């Protein structure tokens, strides 16, 4: 089932006359930059999930908040769908445009408004890049903890909309744990402040609800994040194992020893080889799996923890344990991991990155099952894994120019996500549902749960104009999807009509 917006199952969108809308926008907001020619629109056809493309009706690039408000108010009055977009690095198609919708690009709101070292906060516009916040805070010895791999390019507004993660989540949390306050505009263009400069705020925790809501409930216009003092030191251990099972067990052993590493990553042999070929990080290419364990904090504690972790790794059967001798080697160890995606990309014309999470104890079984599926679908799979928090990133290698390979990759990806749900995990740990995993939502949630999600949406956007078709599937879509995946002779959503 194709993931591009399908009015048959995703809901009919209001028909909009492009010329009328363009005129109305120009009349109301004469200074607003609007792209409407085909060649201008093409660069905005996709986000980081580039296998799927749709040309938007119009692209608007506001510079002032009253323009954003004006666009929203006008689109609401004319019943035109609006898709908000930050830097466009998202991997789940959360900012995939609509043929019948306006793409609202927030990238020009890129000012850091205030760094307050005494309050340990940064107040920034939504288009500010994730890494730029830490760079601006660095002179004060502070930084912003969440560090998605795309941090050099991705914007904080997108991070909030997706509840972005990174390699340091187990110890430092996700985006939601590092926010104080978010300003939003509702679908009607009404301003709301969620959260506060204090640690909590009165009423329901709408800040938590909005974080990760994928642009479905409002448009983010300003973000206040918490800053942390930079850890005094960080050390990395690299451990090699002759089986992924042993590596998986070692992760549990580290935690059982009462240690929460700053980062704890696993890579399998295919990923190790790809990264080593690309980065020359010094990885042991014979190993079935490696673990990278970063310990950060105060010098004395980190030193003790390194000793403890080394012992645990050796007892867990590591064939080799190496500690990065200096900062340069530490950076090299991480460079291999942080470039694992492009490294794997060199092995194959295309790759498809999955984002399931599982309880860690299920890792050996899930990896075995992935190997079986990989053989069944005839596509190679490399595994990189935020082992500390159970977030897997299987990379499916394929060639989009070979007829049927994209479909096969998509189907294999879907199977892997359903496997994650089956063992008690989730279809997405940090990339979001977007359009990419819209069908797998039907496996993770039942129709009553999806109905509650639609009720939440309706409380903020009753006419469904903000980012329609993302994040939460319609019950019709699930019925159609279910019809293709009859499980043990039982149709999911038997109460629904099928078309």
């Amino acid at each position, binding site marked *: 089932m194709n993931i591009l917006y399908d009015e048959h199952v995703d809901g009919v969108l209001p028909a909009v006359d492009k010329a009328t809308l363009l005129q109305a926008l120009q009349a109301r907001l004469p200074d607003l930059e609007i792209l409407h020619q085909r060649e201008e629109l093409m660069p905005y056809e996709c986000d980081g999930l580039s296998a799927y493309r749709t040309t938007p009706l119009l692209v608007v690039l506001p510079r002032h908040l009253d323009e954003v408000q004006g666009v929203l108010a006008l689109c609401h009055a004319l019943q035109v769908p609006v898709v908000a977009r930050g830097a466009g690095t998202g991997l789940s198609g959360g900012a995939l445009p609509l043929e019948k919708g306006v793409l609202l690009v927030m990238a020009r709101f890129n000012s850091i408004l205030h760094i307050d070292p*005494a*309050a*340990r906060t940064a107040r920034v516009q939504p288009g500010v890049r994730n890494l730029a916040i830490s760079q601006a805070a660095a002179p004060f*010895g502070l930084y912003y903890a969440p560090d998605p791999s795309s941090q050099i390019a991705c914007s904080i507004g997108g991070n909030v909309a*997706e*509840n972005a993660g990174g390699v340091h989540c187990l110890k430092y*949390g*996700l985006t*939601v*744990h590092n926010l104080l306050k978010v300003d939003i505009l509702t679908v009607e263009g009404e301003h*709301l402040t969620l959260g*506060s*400069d*204090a*640690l*909590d*705020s*009165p*009423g*329901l*925790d*709408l800040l*938590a*609800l909005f*974080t990760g809501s994928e642009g479905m409930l409002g448009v983010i216009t300003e973000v206040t994040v918490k800053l942390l*003092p*930079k*850890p005094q030191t960080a050390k990395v251990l690299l451990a090699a194992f002759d089986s992924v099972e042993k590596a998986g067990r070692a992760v549990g052993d580290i*935690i059982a020893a*009462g*240690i929460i590493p700053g980062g704890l990553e696993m890579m399998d042999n295919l990923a190790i080889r790809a990264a080593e070929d690309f980065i020359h990080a010094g990885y042991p290419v014979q190993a079935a799996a490696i673990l990278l364990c970063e310990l950060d904090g*105060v*010098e*004395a*504690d980190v030193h*003790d923890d390194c000793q403890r972790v080394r012992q645990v790794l050796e007892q867990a059967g590591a064939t080799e344990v190496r500690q990065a001798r200096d900062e340069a080697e530490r950076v090299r160890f991480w460079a291999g991991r942080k470039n694992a995606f492009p490294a794997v990309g060199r092995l194959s014309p295309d790759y498809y990155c999955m984002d399931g*999470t*599982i309880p860690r*104890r299920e890792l050996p079984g899930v990896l075995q099952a992935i190997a079986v599926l990989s053989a069944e679908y005839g596509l190679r799979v490399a595994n990189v894994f935020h082992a500390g*928090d*159970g*977030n897997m990133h299987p990379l499916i290698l394929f060639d989009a120019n070979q007829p049927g390979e994209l479909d096969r990759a998509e189907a294999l990806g879907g199977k892997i996500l359903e496997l994650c749900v089956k063992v*008690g*995990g*989730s279809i*997405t*740990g*940090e990339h*979001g*549902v977007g359009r990419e995993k819209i069908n797998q*939502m039907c496996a993770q949630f039942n129709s*009553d*749960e999806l109905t*509650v*999600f639609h009720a*939440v949406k*309706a*409380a*903020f956007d009753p006419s469904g104009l903000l980012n329609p078709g993302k994040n*939460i599937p319609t019950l019709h879509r699930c019925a159609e999807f279910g019809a293709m995946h009859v499980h043990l002779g039982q149709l999911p959503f038997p109460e629904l009509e099928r078309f």
Partner: protein
Amino acid sequence: MHSALDRDAGDALLEQVNQALKNATPLWIHGGNSKAFLGRSVTGERLDTRAHRGIVSYDPTELVVTVRCGTPLRELSEVLSASQQMMPCEPPSFGDATVGGMIASGLSGPRRPWAGSVRDFVLGTRVITGQGKILRFGGEVMKNVAGYDLSRLMAGSFGTLGMITEVSLKVLPKPRQALSISLEMDSERALLRLAEWGQQPLPISAACHDGQRLHLRLEGGEGSVTAAHDRLGGEVLDASYWEDLNEHRLSFFDEDLPLWRLSVPHNTPWLPLPGRQLIDWGGAQRWLKSGAEAAFIRRVVEGVGGHVTCYSHGLIDSPFQPLPEALMRYHRNLKRRLDPQGTFNPGRLYAEL
């Protein structure tokens, strides 16, 4: 890990909710009733959660525990403690608090500014909603961004969006070393020092000033705790101080005046308000014993970007700070969509919800 009292009473709870939905009877969700002093009174049929109790699953190496709502908070803490683990947000027990009430009220203890709030440790919930179904949101994994985050929305919702029947929480190992110290200094100086120390990687995990002395808890490895103690000096303080603070057992709380909780940016200077103040959360939470008017206290605290909760039951009609009109409208929309009949804890948080 299991007690003889453990029981899955989910079906009975669901049946009572469905009866209430059918008869349009409002429900007063009742766990240990340990926070009866907080929020507005609810008129409704009592829905007692305490029969639904016990730990459903706990695997220390996964850092996740799943618990039924009626489980006493103290029982959960003991089980975690036996595996050298804890809820880092240190929720207060106020006597007989249950796990469900801990989530619904969302109250956190002294470690909150450094470790996170109750909401930050919620991974998943099972909830009976206004549709009369037990639904599952979130899960038992550390990272999960599928669908809207209804689990964390439940934290601090005071039961107004549905009844929490089960919760999965992230837990963490206890620190290897802990040491509490106390230093003599006045409030202004304490707030300045805390803002300064906050920018440095010091292992502070609790900071409270009582008017005369700054009490600090240092937690971490042996090396960092010893180094911080050498640097900061001070007298060693008994660790029971933090529990007494968290459970409102310090003599400060005895005085016969209304109790107010002020939540402010942590580096807010000392606030000139009538009555006595206790500074907690490194400056971000201030307890006030004062007979001053609510409107006056709120005006002062709003002026510094904070908000005020009245902890003396029945003193004022809106113990939680009133919301701006637009924000309240979306609160009402959400309540109407999730609990269309207004069945769950009507009015506990605000008269309109």
